[in-house]
């Protein structure tokens, strides 16, 4: 509102070298562990590579979703920190790389690719959709679209830093209107392909929404960590205050609750209807000790964040927000573990939940990769969209 007090004084500063060092260290350690895990237990690593891919894909695309929803809704609170969203969404550029291990091991992980599928009437009926060539075409189209939109959004946004041309905002608004439905469909298709089709007899119509929400919470968590660390250390200029942290926390809270809503409705309806084609998916996540994991997921992904994030004093406290962000990143990985690994146990004939080196490797790779990527992205870009017409209003944002 005020022009004097909220004017941003932004001066680009390079991130300290230790960010890159940490990132590379984590990434390389993760890769080494990954290779070791592959040597020890190839099947587990193949299943975990699905977790890794869907984790990064979900975060990348939902970060881009946050960018587009800001344009479309005319939101101002997130404008000063939108660059962080954009940088996080640059993950989509590298998704083909992470999809590669999954594609190479498709025959081992997807039941619909196994020889048994040829004699299974349900899978024969689903074969027109669930077959390798079509799967690869879908994957290519989805990633292609995401990369295309990422390039378009960020190109306009960066150009605005120099030109201050307001029509670029208008162009991104139009782009968002196209992007959002496309994103909704493509993230659903991706989650069906990579996660739901692991148990190809099973189906749930809300599955895509659930994956989207889980990913959104994780993306917001990474973004929150980045925003708080950058801002508290003065990399975002002056003007971003705790009200902005609050909004990030608020979005995370809403995401967690909506994630629970979809997860619970899916579970409860299947439990109530008790139909033989739907219940096995849950039985695989309940029997053999998996019920401990299922209940823990509820606690980790819902109950703790519910009470932690409902309080304003936590959402405006940088240290607690960073803690909760780390917590929720873990929660999302745990969610994906819960979706993918029971299938691994089934295929590998392991009774009950287990954890191996592969999971640790995937976590290190994901986090290391994001840190390195982020550090690379900050090299020659402004960390604040200095040319955005909504910037001043965004800085003046107060609860």
């Amino acid at each position, binding site marked *: *509102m*005020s022009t004097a007090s909220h004017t941003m004084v932004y001066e680009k500063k390079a991130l300290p070298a230790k960010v890159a060092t940490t990132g590379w260290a984590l990434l390389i350690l993760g890769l080494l562990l990954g290779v070791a895990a592959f040597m020890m237990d190839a099947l587990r690593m193949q299943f975990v590579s699905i977790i890794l891919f869907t984790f990064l894909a979900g975060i990348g695309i939902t970060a881009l979703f946050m960018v587009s929803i800001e344009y479309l809704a005319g939101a101002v609170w997130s404008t000063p920190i939108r660059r962080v969203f954009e940088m996080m969404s640059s993950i989509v550029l590298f998704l083909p790389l992470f999809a590669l291990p999954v594609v190479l091991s498709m025959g081992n992980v997807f039941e619909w690719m196994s020889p048994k599928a040829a004699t299974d009437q349900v899978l024969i009926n689903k074969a027109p959709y669930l077959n390798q060539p079509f799967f690869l075409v879908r994957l290519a189209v989805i990633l292609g679209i995401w990369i295309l939109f990422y390039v378009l959004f960020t190109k306009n946004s960066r150009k605005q830093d120099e030109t201050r041309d307001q029509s670029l905002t208008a162009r991104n608004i139009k782009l968002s209107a196209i992007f959002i439905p496309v994103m909704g469909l493509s993230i659903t298709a991706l989650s069906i392909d990579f996660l739901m089709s692991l148990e190809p007899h099973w189906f749930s119509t809300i599955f895509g929404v659930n994956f989207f929400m889980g990913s959104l919470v994780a993306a917001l968590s990474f973004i929150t960590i980045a925003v708080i660390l950058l801002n508290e250390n003065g990399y975002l200029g002056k003007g971003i205050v705790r*009200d902005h942290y609050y909004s990030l926390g608020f979005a995370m809270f809403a995401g967690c609750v909506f994630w629970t809503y979809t997860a*619970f409705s899916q*579970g*409860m309806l299947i*439990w*109530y209807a*008790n139909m033989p084609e739907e219940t096995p998916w849950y039985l695989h996540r309940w029997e053999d000790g998996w019920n401990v994991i299922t209940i823990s997921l509820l606690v980790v992904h819902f109950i703790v964040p519910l009470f932690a994030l*409902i309080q*304003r*004093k936590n959402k405006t406290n940088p240290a607690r927000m960073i803690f909760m962000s780390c917590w929720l990143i873990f929660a999302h990985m745990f969610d994906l573990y819960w979706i993918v690994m029971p299938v691994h146990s089934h295929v590998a004939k392991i009774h009950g939940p287990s954890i191996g080196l592969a999971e640790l490797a995937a976590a290190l790779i994901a986090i290391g990769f994001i840190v390195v990527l982020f550090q690379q992205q900050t090299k020659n870009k402004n960390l604040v969209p200095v040319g955005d017409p909504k910037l001043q209003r965004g800085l*003046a*944002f*107060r*609860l």
Partner: protein
Amino acid sequence: MSKSQKMNKNEEQLFAVTGQFETPDDIMHAAEKAACRYRKFDVHTPYPVHGMDGAMGLGESPIGWVTILVGSTCMLLMLGFISWISLIDYPIVWAGKPYFNLPGYIPILFEITILTGAVTTVLVLFLIVSGFPRNNHPLHDTPYMQRVSDDRFGLCIEAADENFNEAEARALLEEMGAKDIAPIYFNPVEADAGLRLSNPIFMVFLAGVVVVVSGASYFALNRMLELPPFNWMNVQDKTVPQTLHTVFADGRSMQKPVEGTVPRGYLPEDNYKEDPDAMAKYFANPLPASQEVFELGREKYESRCSACHGFYGEGDSRLQGQYPAPPTLHSKKVVDEWNDARIYHVITYGQNIMPAYAKQLTKDERWAVVHYIRALQRSLNPKESDLQ
């Protein structure tokens, strides 16, 4: 009139000193400054100005605690209630689920938490914060309120503040650049005359509203509009089984049969297969010897029996020895010794090589055939009266 007005005027007290600002920024700064000195002051703006709580130095509102405490208490009460119903009061298996069906309860618990939390929050705001049912406030009908609900941003420093001093407050407002600085007076007598929740008149009024509204609804819906909704004729003025009935002395709608009788069509015939004599003893031809019955008996006899027994019952089979010819139906045994029920037994269960006809002929048809056989017998041995 004029005297009382004058008296009221004298009793008027200072409520606050107000000042108006032009822009939201100005009011923000004014609020920040006022917050340094005063605690009892308020800001009035035509629309919500974000960040005002911070500028006014307001802490977190405690209202959230009301919401969560009431919401979770009611959730627990509801959980107890549902559990009591489904575990203690009326345990019933629903859809093969356990009695304590927690996933099924969750939507209800969720709804009840939201509903009670939200409604109580609003009520508490009404009753405690807005002082409902107090319906007046010193700022009502003042030029200040007219302006700040339109295009200006107002700051109102209340006299109740311990640091308040009229001249000082004016000076502060002037220093901040406020326009139209004005004191606001109020009449404590009038203010207290306003309704309060504790006011007995108000409580009686509320109770009266409850009684009148519920009574009127009851009267309108159950007395005046006594139109039962269309119920697909499920409710009728008739006696239905298994109910009480006022007509009969024993109060039952379903009466027992008269002692020693059997309703028509309910004869326990099946028990007599092996005992023709008993059947002969207990049964009698229920049909009258009428023209129609003879016609029916003739039709059935000629189609079912005559092939073996001959058209007149003389045992002159038309089957030309392919089937043993039956004896005549005009034997002394059949005519004189056998009663109708004994013949009926042969038709119903057969006799030696004669097959049973229970499947082909109904009970009435069988009795009608018996009548016809009696007629045939009599035709060979007519009575005096028959010949006339």
